[in-house]
């Protein structure tokens, strides 16, 4: 290892762990001691990364307040040093951290709230794709509808939440007092996508969530309707399927449709 490489390793260790070995290779300035000057880098490291997490999680910040958020942010920075050159991706691991690290893991709504904000952030700058228009559906004869396969927009993603984090998110967004956090009897099934440039989410009924997931897996419309028939009134299954599909198209959640093989 070159001396340059060794020195960089020591410098980084001094920032990440507080080890002072590197100070023997640093000069005092005419007006300040080296400990203080090196401390500029130590302080900037933590504060910059916590700020990045704060920018990505505005509502979690609002929910926790400055002090608790900063404490949580520094714990995250310590537990998960950045491994990506772009700061945009630093907070990607926050939901998982909050789910697994005490004391945050004792409050599952925190991880869910972070997961919802992460999904919205990811939808915001997700890849571009065409938006399927209702008019495109008119080109398919009734005989081929059973074979239609739908392609989700690249920004669309599904998220399951065990808690009422979406209600907390909505209240915080509207500057209202959030409801008490609670674990739901049945997980909430969310669809997140980008409409033009704005990330959106909504909660899906159980059978619509099933239909979305299976449609995204490439299951054709006719089979989707058969599957819907097992959830509720079989005679109305096709109408319900068409209704869900209409909603996906008008909200801009789909990017394409094809008549199968």
């Amino acid at each position: 290892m070159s001396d340059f490489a060794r020195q960089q390793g020591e410098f980084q260790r001094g920032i990440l762990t507080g080890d002072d070995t590197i100070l023997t290779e640093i000069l005092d300035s005419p007006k300040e001691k080296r400990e203080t000057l090196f401390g500029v880098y130590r302080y900037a490291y933590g504060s910059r990364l916590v700020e990045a997490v704060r920018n990505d999680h505005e509502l979690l910040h609002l929910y926790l307040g400055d002090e608790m958020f900063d404490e949580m942010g520094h714990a995250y920075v310590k537990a998960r040093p950045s491994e990506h050159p772009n700061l945009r991706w630093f907070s990607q691991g926050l939901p998982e951290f909050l789910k697994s690290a005490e004391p945050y893991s004792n409050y599952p709504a925190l991880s869910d709230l972070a997961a919802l904000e992460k999904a919205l952030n990811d939808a915001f700058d997700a890849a571009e794709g065409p938006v399927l228009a209702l008019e495109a559906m008119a080109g398919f004869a009734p005989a081929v509808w059973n074979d239609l396969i739908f392609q989700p927009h690249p920004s669309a993603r599904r998220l399951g939440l065990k808690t009422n984090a979406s209600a907390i998110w909505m209240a915080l967004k509207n500057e209202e007092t959030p409801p008490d956090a609670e674990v739901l009897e049945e997980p909430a099934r969310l669809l997140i996508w980008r409409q033009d440039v704005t990330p959106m989410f909504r909660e899906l009924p159980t059978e619509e969530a099933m239909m979305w997931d299976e449609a995204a897996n490439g299951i054709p419309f006719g089979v989707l309707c058969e599957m819907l028939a097992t959830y509720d009134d079989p005679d109305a299954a096709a109408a319900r399927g068409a209704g869900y599909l209409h909603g996906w198209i008008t909200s801009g959640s789909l990017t394409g449709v094809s008549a199968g093989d």
Partner: protein
Amino acid sequence: MNVASRLPDSSAAALADRPMQSAKPPFLGFGLGLRAQHYDEILSGNPPIDWFEVISENYMLPGGQPLRTLDRICERYPVVMHGVSLSIASTAPPNFEYLQGLKDLARRVEPKWVSDHLCWTGVHGKNLHDLLPIPYTEEALDHVVSRVQLVQDFLGRAIVLENVSTYVQFNNSEMTEWEFLAELSRRSGCWLLFDINNVYVSAFNHGYDPLAFLNGIPADRVVQFHMAGHSHMGTHIIDTHDHPVCEDVWDLYVAALKRFGRVSTMIERDDNIPPLDELLLEVNRTREIAEKVLPGKLAE
């Protein structure tokens, strides 16, 4: 067939000192760092700004509003790309995925040039997201020259490197920062982004004359000036980019114009971002001072 004889020579000797020969980038006038807070105002008002500098990493994304906005800005203004994560002086292996992303963005933006900083941001797989200082040694110089050459070969263009604000100096340095920059530019062919505020900050922090720095930089290698604000802590200055440009830095700008002639100049504000009008006043001041210091020399 002797395959070995057909292989490119990647020995250190063969790769040493191959300064990339490239035409000096054009003079763009007086610009501003593009920030998301000003997107709407810029797109709706077409403010009189000669060019924009964009932070490369803010647009190294799959899609969405940032990239769509950047495309529209590029249709109306000359743009240069300025990165913060190249980590050109790191002793870790280069991140080729990052470099490919940078190259892809440059293909989309068609910037007048691509710049980053003479610094490193991490080793051992970690990224500290800071512009970290280096010792000014022959060993470091050899290393950075070889990295600049590699990056320039990969990107297919000469890059521009900026002097950073530093808070510490290493006891094993063998030359000054300006000697290092001058040699780096001569040996690799990279151009220089002269950050006037950073010179002021580092000169104060380390107790040298900023004019010595200024006079030590080869005038023909400088293609851009940065002007920015900082936070004075009494015994040292921190390069926060969250204040207006201070009077001492304006004075140094005058000296830089006298030494380097006309150079594409911009106001760089990264935090505590004011309304666009306020920054336009600073952009106009860079122009007015240049017109006064270099009368008749700004036009093509």
